[in-house]
């Protein structure tokens, strides 16, 4: 699943390791989410959104090209 986690995280200058520690997962899991290779649970989505000060829409909603 495409998402904006990496872009948002980089805008805030947060490392994968830091975000992972804050939301209670491994760094690998954050990497997999950013690459769209793992769909996180809703609980983890919310934790990431809170940590990145963004909404679920900002991070995970896929805009359809017109």
């Amino acid at each position, binding site marked *: 699943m495409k998402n904006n986690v990496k872009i948002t995280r980089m805008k805030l200058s947060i490392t*994968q*390791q830091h975000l*992972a520690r804050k939301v*209670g*997962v*491994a*760094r*690998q*899991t954050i*990497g*997999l989410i*950013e*690459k769209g290779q*793992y769909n*996180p*649970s809703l609980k*983890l989505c919310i934790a990431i959104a809170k940590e990145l000060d963004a909404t679920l829409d900002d991070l995970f909603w896929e805009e359809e090209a017109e």
Partner: protein
Amino acid sequence: MKSWMSFLLSNDEYKRLKMLHFYAEGGVLLFIAMLVLFLTNDYFGLGPDVIVLLGMMVFIFYVSTRYMFAGIEYPDMTSEKSYRKEVRVTLMRSVTFLGIFSGFYLLLVDIPTTAEAWIDLAGIAIITSVVMFVSTFISLKRSYKKNRELL
């Protein structure tokens, strides 16, 4: 989700999901292996103890091999420095195991009296520590490679 086998699973949700898949696949394979043995054991004539052992081996071998190659054992390792350090630690652990295993065998079981018995002891100790090192090394290398790709 709570389960009695939660103690076998990781706190990280990705790793937990992967582990659940491996256990489930191992369970299905175990069922198939038991079914095949049930249907063909008239021909093979294996005893019940051998069948139980085979079943356990199928499950343990499958789950541990999948885990080893999945690259999920070291999810935070991304730097070459930490990778090399962990390889050294793994090597030291295997050598330590070799020493401790041999020491305990000599102390608690028996001191071999023939050359053949010494070779048997050395063979078991060396093969076990080599398998231990190789399996950890594969897991480490796969984890490191996967983590680097995800940076």
